[in-house]
């Protein structure tokens, strides 16, 4: 029972902290433009061009190809193209590790699906007469097994690389080793549960218990796997392991944010309001406490520099 309660608690913490982090990033004020080319939605200019290449660009309709953005995102998320292109020796480990994580998420989704089916009288099983129930059973099995093996290889490789590679070691803190070791133990315990306790079956039961609020028995490896997994879920949103959320903002809100400011637009209203905030900087060329728009109007006061 305590395992179920712990799981509910961790899931709640994860959801709450994740939401808080997303809201925090999303509610930060509109910043000055700082895009970086290539911008993925400029799909007519794959060499990295922008609408600023056009004569009198402001008269032309702005073309934003979302498929272009999606393509770059998918290439990065599912292939880790930048690592593949620039740092192959790192890609060999970071790629299986992340694919292991994605498969782990997919495996959990499949388990939820199976549990829902089971509770409605459809039993996914190797001997099921229905083809789809049989396929689902094997798909879940293969997904889980692949997640554990790839994740284990990836985390072990990254740990070793961070220890041996001088470039990485100087920037790896105890917390980084701790996080990687934690992830390694998740994949390892999952694999052992699979191999030694028929974890797939027990994990299904646990998932059913989770949905119906009924405690289930589980072996030591599965219990270790579940505990490690749910605890990291609750811990992750407070760390930089949440960079997958940040990535949405760094790409959409910074690198690819080339929206022009037009007269009378909502953006202009936002800017006008931001310019009316006071700025508290203290250097002698800034009149501390003045509004940004007032500061922009003033010049030529007594100035002091370093030399």
């Amino acid at each position, binding site marked *: 029972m305590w395992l179920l309660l712990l799981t509910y608690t961790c899931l709640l913490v994860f959801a709450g902290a994740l939401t808080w982090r997303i809201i925090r990033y999303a509610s930060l004020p509109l910043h*000055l433009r700082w895009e*970086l080319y290539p911008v993925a939605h400029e799909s007519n200019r794959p060499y990295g061009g922008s609408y600023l290449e*056009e004569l009198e660009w402001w008269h032309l309709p702005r073309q934003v190809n979302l498929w272009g953005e999606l393509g770059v995102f998918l290439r990065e998320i599912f292939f880790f193209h930048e690592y593949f292109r620039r*740092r192959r020796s790192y890609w060999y480990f970071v790629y299986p590790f992340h694919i292991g994580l994605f498969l782990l998420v997919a495996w959990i989704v499949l388990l939820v699906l199976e549990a829902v089916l089971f509770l409605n009288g459809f039993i996914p099983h190797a001997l099921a007469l229905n083809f789809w129930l049989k396929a689902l059973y094997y798909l879940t099995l293969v997904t889980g097994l692949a997640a554990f093996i790839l994740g284990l290889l990836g985390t072990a490789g990254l740990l070793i690389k961070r220890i041996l590679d001088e*470039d990485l070691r100087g920037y790896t803190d105890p917390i980084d080793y701790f996080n990687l070791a934690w992830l390694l133990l998740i994949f390892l315990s999952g694999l052992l549960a699979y191999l030694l306790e028929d974890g797939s079956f027990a994990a299904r039961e646990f998932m059913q218990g989770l949905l119906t609020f009924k405690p289930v028995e589980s072996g030591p490896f599965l219990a270790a796997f579940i505990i490690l997994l749910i605890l990291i879920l609750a811990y992750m949103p407070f760390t930089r392991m949440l960079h997958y959320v940040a990535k949405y903002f760094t790409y959409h809100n910074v690198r690819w944010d080339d929206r022009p400011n*037009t007269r009378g637009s909502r953006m202009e209203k936002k800017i006008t309001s931001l310019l009316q905030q006071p700025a508290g900087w203290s250097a002698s*060329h800034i009149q501390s406490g003045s509004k940004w728009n007032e500061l922009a109007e003033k010049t030529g006061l007594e100035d002091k*520099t*370093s030399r």
Partner: protein
Amino acid sequence: MKKKINVKDIGKIEGQLAAVEREDLTPLPMLLDQASAGPAIKALTEEQKSRYESSLDGVSAIGLLKPAGKEEEEEFVRKFLTGLKKLLSRENNWTFLQPLLLSLENCAKCQNCSDSCPIYTESGRQEIYRPTYRAEVLRRIIRKYLKKEGKFLSRFTGSNIDLNYTTVARLAELAYRCTLCRRCAQSCPIGVDNGLITHELRKLFSQELGIAPAEIHRLGTVQQLKTGSSTGTSPKALGSFISFVEGELEEITGRPFKLPVDKAGADILLLHNAGEFISWPENIEAFALIFEAAGIDWTLSSALLGYDAVNYGVWYDDVQFARIAVRHAQVARDLKVRRILVGECGHAHKSMLVIADRVLTGDLNIPRESAIPLLEDIVVNDKIKLDPSRNNFPVTLHDPCNLVRLSGIVEPQRRILRKICPDFREMEPHGVDNYCCGGGSGFAIMDNLNFPEWRSAVSGRMKVKQIINAFKDIPSPDIHKYVCAPCSNCKGMIRDLIARYDLWEKYGINYGGLADLIANAMVDLKQPLIKWEDGQSGK
């Protein structure tokens, strides 16, 4: 040999943190028997060392005076921490808070960015120049001194850094060992931007402590706001430059030539970097010739700031940036022009077309565009008569970072060169993957103590290699070669590199602008615009 440097070493009070030795620098091409050739970095004298802060790498970029005593040191650190808090606050830093927090909080420390940085690689991989080094120092200071992690937690998270006068002084210098080219950001799978972190660090020092290189602040933005130009040229003095250009144009065309100045209601206000008037008037002349021949309705301005497109604020100070951006727009509004055209100045492109876009509102939000698409339209659509055989020399193109990676203007200049230069050849890599000339973010104009030597030995080294390699099949100095650099700061840097590496004498490598090449190909000029013999090589 380089000693191993850790992040926390920046706080070690004793001695100099790192030293760039000539033998650490990467070898130059075609000079195989002199692997370490190129300029050396002169050591500061004992007197200079005792006066100026140089404990980072023996170089002084900002001329930071050493404090008089303990009290001054403590005040310096206290102000730094106050500034750091402001940098992380909505009110004081709305301008860049979102990208800054995203970059500070999400780096996976994978070092994928390191090899993108030419300063790091060309210096022989000096640890302190690694793109993640200064960012990591800043993160650790934030965790330990602002978030106040306890002793155990700070050890666990690696926030083992001492914040003292030396740490802050070295950080101030370190903020000027990056050209803000943002090549590192381009290579980050997460989107972390170490160039931005450097930019923000510069802002902290300028906006809170009043520390910035004199060439950028006192002689740069402050002088521009007071006299009208960072070159010190007043509206009155501009008149003599205009007369000089008109005289030159008369010689080239064989007829009287008047530049349009302060023509109210013109279609275009053309804003040049005022450095062109002083160092490269042929670029101003080229624009005048092309626009006149194409029948463009344009004007220059003689109003305060109306004749200098530069905005050094973009490199170090949001307030100075906004002041200059607003004045540029006011000049255009008062002249009642329809649009502003930015000449061949890379950072003016980024500041005016990109960053100022979210500063200028209402009647100050006047359409602004690059001059390059208009030049492309004129050349590619045969609006003037050109003879490409007049440019019958090898030409390569240097891509200013601000133009390509930071503004997305990549192909128009290439379409022009392909049409008017029979031997146009790309340097590698190019376009949005280009390397900075080494003079970006103010480096080209910063001349404090031994910084110019560091600049040409380290930050400009990759560009020298690229330029030589672009012409490696024709090394003879008898074959004159042209590096086209459509940016005043890049031209200044390339001029410096040509002089310091003897590229004119050894390889016959010269440089100039884009409009210069177009005007040089104009069929009805009495004299060619590009004069190889009289100083364009910067000798």
